[in-house]
């Protein structure tokens, strides 16, 4: 589907750049416009990656949860929408951590490893998201 969300956001950014050229703009307005342009660029940079990231994270989180023993997590209630499901799965991780307590070292390490991979793969946090490889 073209323009993609990122292409569309970059297009809006070009409009803002054109407004910023206006010599009559006050310093305060110029600063606000500059902030808006930076935010838009950041958003645009990760926009097309977002869907892939959420799908990957949902699958990876489900796999981690499925490996945990003795937890009563109802996976049948997961939302169809990927973003809503992501919030549910992350809440399940919180519940799992609270249930596990401090002494289930192996399970906690597994969750920590997944969350660490998630930080690297998140396009909202990285210019070049990195998904875990087989070696990770």
């Amino acid at each position, binding site marked *: 589907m073209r323009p993609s969300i990122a292409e569309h956001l970059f297009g809006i950014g070009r409009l803002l750049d054109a407004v910023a050229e206006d010599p009559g703009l006050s310093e305060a307005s110029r600063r*606000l416009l500059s*902030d808006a342009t930076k*935010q838009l660029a950041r958003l645009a940079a990760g926009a097309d990656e977002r869907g892939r990231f959420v799908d990957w994270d949902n699958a990876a989180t489900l796999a981690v949860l499925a490996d945990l023993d003795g937890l009563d997590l109802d996976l049948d209630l997961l939302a169809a929408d990927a973003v809503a499901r992501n*919030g549910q799965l*992350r*809440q399940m*991780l*919180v519940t799992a*951590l*609270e249930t596990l*307590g*401090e002494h289930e070292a192996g399970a*906690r*390490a597994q*969750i*920590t*490893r997944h*969350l*660490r991979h998630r*930080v*690297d793969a*998140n396009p*909202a*946090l*990285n210019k070049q998201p990195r998904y875990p490889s087989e070696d990770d």
Partner: protein
Amino acid sequence: MSDDAAIFDALQQFVTTRLGPRARPEVSNVQRVATGRARENWLFDLSWSDDTGRHHEPLIVRQDPEGGLIDTDRATEFAVLQALESSAVPAPRPRWLDAVGAELTKPSLVMSRSVGTCEYYCINGDRPLEQRRALARQFCALLASVHLLDWSSTSLGTLFGDPGPRAALGELDRWEAILAADQLEPWPELTLAGQWLRARAPLNSGTVLVHADFKPGNVLLDDDDAVTALLDWELAHLGDRHEDLGWVTQPLRRGEHLIDGAWEAEHLFALYEELTGVAVDRVAVAWWNIFSTFKTAVMQISGLRAYVEGRIDEPYQPSAAVLRELLDSVV
């Protein structure tokens, strides 16, 4: 009416109410300054008369913005500044408080304005190494002076209460409560870190006044690099000295406080021990290092809520650096 005109009128009325019309108070040179993320500041000059003549005083108003990274209480900060007034700690002199913003439209502190400027990265800036190291030593001495304050002889004990041995758990409770109140979505990263911290919290062996946001960016330096004031006391409380030591040696703020090879954490600890006569517990500092990262993440989450609610314009969120540091520390 513009913000500038409105604050001018409000200030004129405010000081007239405080000093009385016979003092003929005059507000002038009102200007807004953008310093710090938690407050809106206005500089102004005040002139007034009494039996000894006409006086002039540079002042600053610190106001709550519509939203910030953290919500703190103006009355508490005012009380801290009052407690510091007769101490050796260079802090702004508190003048007046509008705790709920009844007169100045927003909760506001009026304080003396010291000369100097704040430089966040002066420790690693353009000055020659020896000057930067001298600055670092000076900051360490400033922190030591805060911790050497005899808080029991001030109103701080009544204001905060002594947390005693469980100071670390008390701070963890506080920041977990802020997290619970402000998070818009689940953060298992912080649940994990909170559990790790709770299981290993050190015991406090000597309560001090903790600044809780000590950094060069909160220190005013004059043209000769002398400290004229330590600012931003809004997070101050009674607690464990290692909280401040952990804050200034946390890896993510290294560029603000340490110099590679020339002023490392051990240099800072050695000077601190010499100045205070108190041994630094390295294990406790390591815990507070991780707590500092946790606290930073919570502040970013509070900022995220403020952004979503339209109270600030910067879209905060826990950064990759903060989350990586946190997860790598607790694994």
